[in-house]
């Protein structure tokens, strides 16, 4: 599975939202489904899918889909979202 698909799946399954909602603009706390509890589930899912362990500062900064891509790329050069 492509990284972009993996990312979309992580968001849809963690937040319980439709794939078309997962755009770069989707931001934390702007939809009811992406609250603080769902955020933790999302972090766990992203770490699981991409096999990384995020630093706390990055978890705080991971406030949008666009940010998620930037942060995940920091941990592994092979993670690209073309």
């Amino acid at each position: 599975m492509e990284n972009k698909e993996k990312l979309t799946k992580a968001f849809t399954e963690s937040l319980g939202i439709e794939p078309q909602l997962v755009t770069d603009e989707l931001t934390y706390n702007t939809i009811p489904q992406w609250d603080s509890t769902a955020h933790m589930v999302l972090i766990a899912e992203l770490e699981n899918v991409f096999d990384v362990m995020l630093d706390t500062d990055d978890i705080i900064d991971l406030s949008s889909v666009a940010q998620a891509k930037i942060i995940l790329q920091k941990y592994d050069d092979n993670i690209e979202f073309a």
Partner: protein
Amino acid sequence: MTTLSSPNLADGSVLITGATGGIGEATVTRAITDGAFVIACGRDANKLEQLSSQFEGNIHTLCYDVTDEKAISNAFREVQKGVSAKKWPALYGLVNGAGVMSETVLAMTSADALKQQMAVNFYAPYQHMQLASRLMSRQKAGSIVNIVSQVGELGSSGMSAYAASKAALTGATKSLAKELAPMGIRVNAVAPGFIDTALTAHYDEKAKQKVYERVVLQREGTAKEVANAAIYLLSHHASYTTGHVLPVDGLFCP
């Protein structure tokens, strides 16, 4: 409705800090006896080596200082790598057992001593809970047990820094039980009273007798008795218990 899943201890790994101390070692032994794979963390490399030989195949040891934030992060990365490589099962349990005890009156407590109490007894367990809960969230199951203290629950003259650090951990325990329940994670604490460990080794017989006079069971507790309580709370036997502090103190009356 939140249903907290609590698999059998034998199905998961348990990370134990302070594993080379009295209560920590007893908890390691009891957890392995109950079938868990234990990730034993401590600072005493020789003691860790001994545990590794004693429990070969059921243990992985990590030597680091719990006040070293980077070392804690690396420890959890190693835990997850081991899970990914199927060297051990997914992390199910965490026992925050590392601790230090300062016995100084208010006027004689330096800022550095206070900071050290907070660093070891509160900040370190807090960071361990942050990282462990993220790994546990992946399975939507986990159990955390913090070793607090009856000194933190009841107070004790000449031990305000220690009491404050342990009371802080009790507060975090109760709050995180509520916060992590949706993730299937239970959080509880064990509050030992006067226990026969290295922390109380400096008490002479006369001082011990003075303490026993305030204990209904009129004796000190053992590390094994504390470990039994910790393992109970960690296990599926306590599947409907979260946010609680279980005293193991022979009914201490300050």
